[in-house]
């Protein structure tokens, strides 16, 4: 059974809830329109479709857009069909909450704790939603786009303190996809110039995507 067939099965069962599938370089991504249904979808994917393993959960901060958060679930049928499926779902900033899938795959426990720690997205029904890397009582969520790389000062008596790190003229930002190493190298980048370069990069990317997947059109 290929992953495309499995994706169609999932789509047939949940209908409107699932959009896609989008294919890119042989990998299939499904989008779940309602993040509240993630538990049902994941439960079904494990029980009926043989996705016995959760490889990873990651979170994206689409800062300045609504909904702000995107959560990405990487599913794998380890002992069954050995196919990989990606599930994405959006969560708004006001809500910043969705159901936990730690009841489906126990490994989700720590993935979700890390996302809570770094992004501040909460998981309803999680058995032990504490910070996993930073200490309890640290007041910020450091992987958010509006959190400075240097950090912010904080103080928790007897536990830990933080200070803003000196940037010495930075932060120095690399530009992925720049036309040569001089364009890509880490340096101070001003927003206006950045925008021009980023647009040029996105144009190039669209060209590349068009060249590699002309007939799919779902992206």
């Amino acid at each position: 059974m290929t992953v495309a067939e499995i994706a169609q099965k999932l789509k047939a069962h949940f209908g409107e809830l699932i959009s896609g599938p989008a294919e890119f370089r042989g990998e299939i991504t499904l989008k779940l329109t309602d993040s509240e249904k993630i538990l049902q979808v994941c439960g079904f994917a494990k029980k009926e479709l043989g996705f016995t393993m959760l490889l990873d959960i990651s979170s994206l901060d689409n800062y300045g857009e609504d909904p702000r958060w995107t959560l990405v679930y990487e599913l794998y049928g380890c002992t069954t069909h050995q196919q990989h499926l990606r599930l994405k779902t959006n969560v708004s900033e006001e809500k910043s909450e969705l159901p936990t899938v730690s009841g489906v795959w126990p490994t989700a426990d720590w993935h979700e704790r890390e996302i809570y720690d770094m992004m501040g997205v909460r998981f309803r029904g999680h058995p032990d939603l504490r910070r996993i890397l930073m200490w309890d009582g640290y007041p910020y969520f450091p992987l958010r786009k509006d959190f400075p790389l240097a950090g912010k000062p904080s103080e928790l008596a007897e536990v830990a303190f933080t200070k803003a790190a000196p940037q010495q003229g930075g932060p120095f930002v690399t530009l992925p996809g720049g036309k040569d190493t001089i364009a890509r190298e880490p340096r101070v980048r001003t927003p206006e110039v950045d925008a021009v370069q980023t647009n040029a990069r996105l144009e190039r990317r669209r060209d590349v995507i068009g060249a590699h997947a002309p007939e799919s059109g779902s992206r």
Partner: protein
Amino acid sequence: MPAQAMHTSAEIGYNSKIEGDVVHTRLDAALNWFRRNSLWPMPMGLACCAIELMATGASRFDISRFGAEVMRFSPRQSDVMIVAGTVTYKMALAVKRIYDQMAEPKWVIAMGACASTGGMYRSYAVLQGVDNIIPVDVYVAGCPPRPEALLDALIKLQSKVPDRPVVKEMTLFSHQKETANVA
């Protein structure tokens, strides 16, 4: 027998055969010499520098040539803390507590770029140099430093040890203790 005993003690008190091997020195210098050549490290291994620290302790580089082979994982029995690696804010107060638990006299070597300045981690999570929380005697450059560099730091620290007037410190300390008891 009394006569016999007297004879024996006389021999120890003065023996012309060993006369040439007696060394005269100041007590300070002797005590510092002992200290200098048995600096027991407290290996504060926090990141990849700890691997080079282990290499320094192993046979090829052999830190025991300088009397510092006794790596004690107890701060109570160590003289020099080698902070080897990235000090995160989460670990910072633990490092300070371990330093506080070490008995005087004590020294600190900041090994590598991270322990000295935060290194490449100009970030929210990393302390920008362990000298923000504890006094550092020797900084070692490198990412990570070669074992030779750590040994060089140890030798530099050894040359720094004799600066301390041990006897004066000890008498001062006991005097302070007495006055404290009286008060």
